[in-house]
């Protein structure tokens, strides 16, 4: 982006790598312990024997296959609803003038602040009232209207050039047509970024899913993971890390695959 001299370039490359290594350290450690027997948790010998027992042990501790399916359904459901509700609301805030706009937006921002964990008891009662306890929608519902998502999308929509909006209106696009054909495509990078954030957050969410679900058919992977996380008998890093890698692998791989598109979509959306 900014032209750099050779030294500059070297310093930057060096700095970015140093930081990357530091940042990747926990993951590297997780991989190390997961593929070695437990006695190498704290001994980093190059020739330590490799093993898969940690993964086997982790996999067998809970019906992970089913849990993965549940998690997948859960995050897809949440993401789809968040996109849908967030898009509509953000569009209203970004491009409409109407009475009550400030107050409603304040209420949306408020949701950024209210910790859903604190409202668990109340929300449990609501779910029971709707007879939704122990269902996947029950895990999803409190999160599908996301203040964060609305806020983020609104910011993005506000940067869409006004002429594009006007051109589309002149071409006869309806309000929803305008949103769908102009705003949404232009906000693609934001959707990607937000999607990533939302998926990783809900993939890893634990307490609420644990409390609202009772059966294997509804529980997400984190519940399986937690078998290792809290133990009386000391932390078994090798197994907990194997389980961690196993449960976050789809996310990590997803990001690895996505990051190219991620960057490309920025390029495509960017107006030269």
């Amino acid at each position, binding site marked *: *982006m*900014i032209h*750099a001299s050779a030294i500059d370039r070297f310093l930057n*490359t060096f*700095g*970015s*790598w140093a930081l*990357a290594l530091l*940042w990747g350290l*926990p*993951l590297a*450690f997780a991989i190390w312990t997961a593929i070695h027997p437990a006695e190498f948790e*704290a001994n980093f010998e190059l020739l330590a024997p490799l093993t898969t027992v940690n993964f086997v042990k982790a996999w067998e501790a809970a019906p992970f296959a089913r849990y993965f399916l549940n998690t997948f359904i859960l995050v897809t459901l949440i993401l789809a609803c968040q996109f849908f*509700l967030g898009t*509509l*609301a953000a569009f*209203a805030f970004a491009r*409409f*003038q*109407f009475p009550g706009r400030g107050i409603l937006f304040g*209420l*949306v921002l*408020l949701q950024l*602040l*209210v*910790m859903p964990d604190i*409202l668990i*008891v*109340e*929300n449990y009662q*609501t779910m029971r009232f709707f007879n939704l306890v122990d269902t996947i929608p029950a895990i999803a*519902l*409190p999160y599908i*209207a996301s203040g964060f998502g*609305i*806020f*983020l999308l609104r*910011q993005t929509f506000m940067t869409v050039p*006004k002429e594009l909006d006007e051109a589309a209106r002149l071409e006869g696009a309806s309000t929803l047509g305008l949103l769908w054909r102009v705003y949404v495509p232009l906000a693609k*990078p934001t959707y990607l*970024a937000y999607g*990533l*954030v939302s998926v990783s957050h809900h993939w*890893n969410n*634990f307490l609420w899913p644990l409390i609202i679900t009772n059966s294997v058919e509804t529980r997400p992977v*984190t519940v399986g*993971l937690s078998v290792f*996380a809290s133990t009386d008998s000391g*932390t078994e890093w090798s197994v*907990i890390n194997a389980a961690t890698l196993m449960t976050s692998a789809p*996310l*990590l791989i997803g*990001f*690895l695959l996505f*990051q190219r598109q991620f*960057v490309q979509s*920025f390029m495509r959306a*960017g*107006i*030269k």
Partner: protein
Amino acid sequence: MTRRIEWVHAWLLLLPAMVFLFTFTHLPAVRTIIDSFFSTARGRRKSVFVGLENYQQLIDDPTFWKVLANNLWFALGTIPTSIAIALVMALWVNEKLAGRSFIRMAYFTPTVLPLIAVANIWLFFYTPGFGLFDQIATGLFDTGQHNFLGNPDTALAAVMVVTVWKEAGFFMIFYLAALQTIPPSLLEAARVEGAGRWTIFWRVVFPLLMPTTLFVSVNAVINSFRLVDHLFILTGGGPNNASSLLLFYIYETAFRFWDTAYAATLTVVLLVMLSLLAIGQFFLFDRKVHYK
């Protein structure tokens, strides 16, 4: 453009989101506020109206003041650091450096990994004696053991390090997105005008990133009061509350002590504080940072 039809459209667009917001956030939150004026219902004792008694208890509660102070230090320590690191990361990742994909991946992993698992890994790093940091320190400098988490003077700082590590990659994504939308011709114009990297950054890039900085800092403020998952594993708030934060204390009060009324009171305080900080921040700067 303020015509009736527009209002109706806008309200229709907002309706679905608002229904869910109200059902799962605002109504429960209002009930929380109401709860803060009642005593906790225990099976044998009904909840009764106690007025401001819970607030009185709060003022007299040394733990509350302790965790509040901790939280302020925590915010001061983590917000600027994580934002600055995120910005640097984004600038680096936005350039065509060797191994960019790997670097981007490395920066982003903390966002993807579940915090409980990550906390366990950091627990290992911090462990005295055979933990990674001590191994490195002993290997390099032959110093003794460091009990980072077990020492009240360092526990909070150790937790802050984990938080910054967790947050920076998350914020980086937003800076990265913003950087990509800066028209290249602006940077070219600045380069032609003889501006070096430093000047370009401070006079062009940084101001153009202001909307993102606002967004990120609002989130950072909120997160500094919200990210407590790792406390459960790393320190449990100890030693002697040295690393306890407000939300952690609320969580303990609500889900360990089951004193819902007092927890509600603490929550109200937290909400009021955050609203003042975050919403204030937002409304104050929103106008200033949008040029279009």
